[in-house]
């Protein structure tokens, strides 16, 4: 059973890698592909990628850890990113982030125990003239406020 699951994972990894490995500079597109597939970059993918691109595992690992986007562990069912950059701070972004942490009982880069939310910081979503900004999964949110925050938490928890 475990083994079957493992084989299935390896197959999914190989599919992503095979589809992208011929591109010039394929590593980032592959890592994005893996993360889209699994929600994070599983350790098992590193040797497969290294092999396909003729790199060392250390090279691949070095790239995975360099970029903030790539997660080493699965995230919660929903990822809430809150902008920490200056324009959002100018309109209360920091207080809002603190409110979110209090409401969810977690800090940045943490996941709630019910696995519903992972909270992540982001530095600018290009919504700076409608600050503060946030992103729930792939959904952008502008003029973010306590009401919108409470609605999101309620909707997902219910």
């Amino acid at each position, binding site marked *: 059973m475990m083994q079957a699951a493992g084989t299935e994972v390896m197959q999914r990894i190989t599919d992503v890698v095979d589809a992208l490995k011929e591109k*010039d*500079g*394929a*590593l*980032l*597109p592959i*890592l*994005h592909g893996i993360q889209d597939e699994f929600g994070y970059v599983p350790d098992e993918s590193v040797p497969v990628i290294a092999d396909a*691109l003729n790199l060392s595992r250390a090279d691949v690992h*070095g*790239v995975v850890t*360099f*970029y*903030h*986007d*790539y997660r080493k562990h699965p995230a919660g069912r929903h990822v809430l990113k809150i902008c920490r*950059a*200056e*324009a*959002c*701070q*100018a*309109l209360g972004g920091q207080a809002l982030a603190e409110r979110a942490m209090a409401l969810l009982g977690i800090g940045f880069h943490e996941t709630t125990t019910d696995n519903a939310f992972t909270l992540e910081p*982001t*530095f*600018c*979503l*290009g*919504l*700076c*003239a*409608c*600050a503060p*900004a946030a*992103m729930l999964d*792939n959904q*952008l*949110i*502008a*003029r973010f406020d306590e009401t919108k925050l409470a609605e999101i938490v309620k909707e997902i928890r219910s």
Partner: protein
Amino acid sequence: MSQRIYVPRDSFALALGADKIAAVIQNEIAARGLDALVVRNGSRGMAWLEPMVEVETAGGRIAYGPVTPADVASLFAAGLLEGGDHPLSLGDPEQIPFLKRQQRLTFARCGIIDPLSLEDYEAHGGLAGLRNALAMPPLEIVKQVTESGLRGRGGAGFPTGIKWQTVHDAKATQKYIVCNADEGDSGTFADRMIMEGDPFVLIEGMIIAGIATGATHGYVYIRSEYPEAIKVMEEAIGIARHAGLLGWNVLGSPNLFDMEVRVGAGAYVCGEETALLNSLEGKRGVVRAKPPLPAIEGLFGKPTVINNLISLASVPIILDKGGAYYRDFGMGRSRGTIPIQIAGNVRYGGLFEAAFGLTLGEIVNDIGGGTATGRPIKAVQVGGPLGAYFPEKLFDTQFDYEAFTAVGGLIGHAGIVVFDDTADMLHMARFAMEFCAIESCGKCTPCRIGSTRGVEVLDKVRAGIEPERNLALVTDLCNTMKFGSLCALGGFTPYPVMSALTHFPDDFRPQVLPVAAE
């Protein structure tokens, strides 16, 4: 022909519920049996009015905003299709002072056309620059760009024509055009608005760059924080390829040019051009020492034009109207127009394209209307996280590369972030150091370690521990970072820190605890 109702698909509008508004409008059209269709345009850049819906009437376009889904029924009841009166009516959008005062060259079509309609694009002047370019020898294209006085809009202000000349002159079997759409600066969204509102202007600009320099392949490196821009850009490239604009015979000419989108992975430093090239090559986004210049040894070791998106998107109008036309806007050595992005705590925020030369005060007070909270302005940060904080007494500084350098600042990508009097400048200085520590590529010690030390030392200042000594230490650290860093991340973080300290020294003094009232 069906009447057009415009509902933006720009991120400003999407983040405020535009998809839902579009759906409700569709329903109303169907329920009322009207001959109208919803077009998803870009944004006009008046962010406080988003989502701004426009309708094409016999007498021209009429705008309404900011619209919520709940307003839609009443808009139709008021006669939306005739541009009927409604409390949300804004009249002719081009007569709104914020838009009327602008000189839109690069953003001429943004918010007006359907961004994914090549017919719309051409009907509004698109491809005229490319057609002219195709009839010129490559060096003449470079000459027009040089003559226009266009300088890089990514921050460094390097003359675009000179960069292109270098790549043109380089001998190689393969050359590249790379568009820097990493747009990581807080307070900026111009690149995003073009990608979402007029993507063909970037495609046209990159093709012209390719023909001018002999490059046949282009990459648009877009930050992952811009999911909508990525979507529209990819779709636009597909359409351009299908229409024969990209590919083996650009517009039927013997020229080959093709391009693709690459997505970043959340590293601010990858906006730095050599880090970006490393990232495109699939490596860690570490900054490369220069020389060699990317124009000589760039992507995969080949001669590469790497330009900011706005630099490239300004090229079609230059080739359409001529270098001299563009050069006649602006002041001093800052020629042409610049899309100023007004953000943060501001009443009328958004994108304002104008010739160089406005003063900072005009921008934030006359155009921006002061703060959104209605409180006095305390500070304005210009040029992103590496830009200086300006107090009111410097508001007569003119928007011009040299004028900003002269007062210890930089224009950067022309983002302006407004703060009211509740801003805590010690906190902002600390944030600048923290941001540098988080985003440092790690290559230089002053940047990597200095920024972390900076955070610790500023925390001590906050705690009232030996403030004099620790502030002297901050100044020292800033000097070390300024002179011992390879790129502007470590080298310019001192700008926000030192400007905060210089202009707002009170915020760095130990807090006098208020004595409890008896």
